[in-house]
């Protein structure tokens, strides 16, 4: 899908304004955005970069060069690795579970049975619910005398209320429950658009060829949805590396770092322990991970046109 558009792009735009010499007009259009970046982001970015090799001696004043020791400190911190592992789990939960659910729901809606499209908007609503609110509501639902416990106990599934958010086993899954709630609608919408982009006649060709539902799904739907799924997965992974508030508003990373992810641990180092140099180094490691993944997006989706 992407590459067909890509091929057309260069042809299309080569020509619109030209009269010999360099044409500066395009840069004029770019200028406001570049100025905004230059003014707002360049200094903080460079400053953070420098700080990652420094230690703050006076806040807002002197700093001391410490070489790579901030990076060393982070990489030798077992909690960093723990958070890294949790981030992996978190990413998988944030990307794949909603993906599968979203795909399933998208297929149901794509049947076009009358009335199904209203479900699309409904299931999408959590995407726009403020994260703070989602965190509050899920914390409440999952509390030891919350609704979920009372249902589980009432149904005899568990004997005693579980302490979901306070359990080293359940804290991360609990956060993920909220994340899945918030994200399924997002994937649903993307995948549904992908599904609806598959021409009917291709399905019909398979139908005339006598293919079963499963064969059609496996051989037609999934492969044709692949670009959508792939890009979605990677964007999801990047989101999950940057994700911070999801965990922050629910467990803060605890207990015992059981729900600590990279972004929340970064936050603690920088803003709770006030280790600014280390925080900056950590920030750059985060950025490097996100950037690597973003380059992957660019690669996968074919060239620079994402």
């Amino acid at each position, binding site marked *: 899908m992407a590459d067909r558009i890509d091929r057309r792009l260069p042809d299309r735009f080569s020509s619109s304004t030209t009269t010999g010499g360099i044409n500066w007009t395009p840069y004029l259009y770019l200028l406001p955005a570049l100025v905004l970046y230059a003014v707002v982001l360049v200094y903080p970015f460079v400053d953070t970069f420098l700080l990652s090799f420094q230690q703050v001696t006076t806040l807002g004043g002197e700093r001391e060069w410490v070489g790579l020791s901030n990076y060393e400190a982070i990489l030798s911190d077992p909690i960093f690795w723990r958070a890294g592992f949790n981030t992996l789990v978190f990413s998988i939960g944030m990307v794949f579970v909603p993906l599968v659910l979203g795909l399933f729901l998208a297929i149901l809606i794509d049947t076009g049975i009358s009335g199904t499209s209203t479900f699309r908007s409904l299931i999408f609503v959590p995407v726009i619910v403020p994260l703070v609110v989602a965190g509050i509501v899920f914390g409440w639902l999952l509390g030891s005398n919350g609704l979920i416990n009372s249902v589980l106990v009432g149904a005899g599934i568990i004997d005693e209320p579980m302490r979901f958010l306070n359990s080293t086993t359940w804290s991360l899954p609990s956060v993920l429950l909220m994340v899945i709630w918030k994200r399924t609608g997002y994937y649903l919408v993307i995948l549904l658009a992908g599904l609806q982009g598959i021409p009917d006649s291709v399905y019909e060709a398979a139908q005339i060829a006598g293919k079963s539902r499963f064969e059609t799904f496996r051989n037609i739907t999934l492969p*044709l949805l692949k670009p959508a799924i792939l890009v979605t997965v990677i964007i999801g992974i990047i989101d999950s590396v940057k994700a911070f508030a999801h965990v922050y508003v629910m467990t803060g990373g605890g207990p015992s770092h059981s729900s600590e992810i990279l972004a929340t641990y970064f936050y603690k180092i920088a803003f709770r322990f006030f280790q600014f140099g280390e925080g900056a180094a950590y920030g750059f490691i985060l950025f490097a991970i996100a950037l690597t993944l973003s380059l992957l997006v660019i690669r996968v989706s074919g060239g620079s046109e994402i």
Partner: protein
Amino acid sequence: MKLEIENLTKEFGDLVAVDDVSMTIEDGEFVTFVGPSGCGKTTTLRCVAGLETPSSGTIRIGGTDMTAANPKERGTAFVFQDYALYPHMTARRNMSFALESTDMDSEAIRESVETTAEMLGIREHLDQTPGELSGGQQQRVALGRSIVRDPKIFLLDEPLSNLDAKLRVQMRAELQQLHREIQSTTIYVTHDQEEAMTMSDRVAILDGGKLQQIAPPSVVYSQPANEFVAGFIGSPSMNFLDCTVSSGAVETTAFSLDAPAGSEDAVTLGIRPENITLDHVGGDGDTEATVAVFEQVGSFNIVYLDIDGLDDVVAQVPGAKQFEAGDRVSVTIDTDRIHLFAEDGETVHNPPVFTKEPAAAE
């Protein structure tokens, strides 16, 4: 395999897309569907293929009632206007995909695919995906995908309309060749009259969901069942002139002709452009006229005439006959080939179908 369509009706809500259509298509016959956009051609085809459930009516294939059968049980092949190739599969896989769920072994599949590809001249493209193929090649893959399944009935929905003119002519010839080889019952939908006229055993003309006429090309051309068919078939279109028939003469505002027997109800005179002969004034034509526009097409020329109050009468003359706007010409009408239509559009009189002249010296 013989295909019988009986009283087929298909409604979408209030809209009657196919309206009580009946026809029988003999085994091996090649029938073309033509008609204006939205007249129900595709819908009929889809009902036959089982992609659409008829609202009423019966579809029999080889004598068996298939009205409610699964597409796969019907043994039909459907070639879509947009080809509907599986975009992620190679040409080979596109062709073999349907066979994979049969009990055919993979060696046999391979062989069948390659033979078909050979026949269609796409052998060397088998490992390319549709995105890497030209329109004509994609069209061939789509055909091949149907052919390998050895269908009893071939349904083609405007398969050539996405191709450019030259390629279309070429593919048209190939399709005919193909039909001669595989001899399967075929329904072919097209917008292109030349295709309809030249390819088919019979042409079915639909309008507003209703079957107007189904007959061999020469018959629909020479003996259209009604004014709609007469106007639809032929290019440039037949000239329709208001007329009255009385005391053995067809009278228009400009001229009168001998009326054929039994044509008293006629209110419209139909004359095909090629049945109007023009000469520079001096010939003894039926009437005279002024050339409004002269269009030189090449092998023939088109002349727009003003005949005494009748605007826009179109004549088609051989390429060598040159006129220019403003010329006065004498007009001769081939009275043997006039058409007459009643108030309700039904045909009152048609000329005979052309027949082969007896060989001169045999």
